[in-house]
């Protein structure tokens, strides 16, 4: 538990970053999906470019983790249907509510009641996925 307290600090840091760059604002996501502003594309694009450089350092073993082990990012589950259909469902919820998975927790600190309802919905959604996971096409 104590050795993981650094994740709590990192969570606080990430929440402050997302809040300060307005990447939790409903209006910013509306603007993004309407292609009316560069703001969110700049943030996500910048994050991907810098992260891609970091990933290369991980893969080449230049940077090891805190315990000295090689960092191997887990490969993503393959499947055209699961990614496209699942992604579309997520996009629908994201577009209407302006919340994605990390920001929904951050928004709890801004607007706790609506954020709590979104979170409750997300748990119901994840539960439905768990029930259906073996029957859904991948």
């Amino acid at each position: 538990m104590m050795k993981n307290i650094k994740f709590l600090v990192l969570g606080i840091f990430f929440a402050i970053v997302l809040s300060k760059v307005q990447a939790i604002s409903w209006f910013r996501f509306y603007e993004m999906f309407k292609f009316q502003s560069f703001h969110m594309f700049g943030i996500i694009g910048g994050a991907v470019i810098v992260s891609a450089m970091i990933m290369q350092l991980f893969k080449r073993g230049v940077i090891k983790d805190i315990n000295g082990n090689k960092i191997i990012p887990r490969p993503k589950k393959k499947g055209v249907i699961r990614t496209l259909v699942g992604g579309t469902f997520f996009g629908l919820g994201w577009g209407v509510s302006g919340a994605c998975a990390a920001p929904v927790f951050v928004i709890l600190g801004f607007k706790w009641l609506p954020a709590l309802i979104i979170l409750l919905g997300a748990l119901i959604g994840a539960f439905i996925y768990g029930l259906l996971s073996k029957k859904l096409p991948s």
Partner: protein
Amino acid sequence: MEIIFQPWPWYVGGPLIALTLFLYFYFGKNFGASTNFETLCTMAGAGKVSDYFKKDWKDRDFALLFVVGLIIGGFISSNYLILDQTIDLNPKTFQELTDLGFSNVGNTYFPNEIFGNEVAMSLKGFLILILSGACIGFGTRYAGGCTSGHAITGLSNFQLPSLLAVIGFFIGGIIAVWFLIPLIF
């Protein structure tokens, strides 16, 4: 001090999000957020209904602490670090939303028409929030990730599934914003 209270420009956001990803991996874990929805289901006892949730949630205590940090960070930001929530929106966005009946567009991070407490407790408002949430929970788990896990971690690691997922995010988001929002409001 001034710089802390001002909104931060977009070009600061990307590198600081990448720093978060870096530290998450440096601490020995895969960066992502949406798996927590499953962990919370497990903690709520979903394992009694479905084997899918029969996992030891204590293995994910680091991620739960990260989530607690997100909530604390949101609280700190809203109360102490953001004195003015005005958003410098495209005038076109402002006009569109005003025409749809939204008030005070861009004066706060969250529109009252969706995030107001009274709206959230009305039948329509409640359904909008809970159904959006259900799409987020179901969709992220089916797709295997969200903006953090797919768009940032996956794309930067050149994962093809993540590219497909992000295309899906935009299909859904475009349908939501171009068609559903005008339909609902």
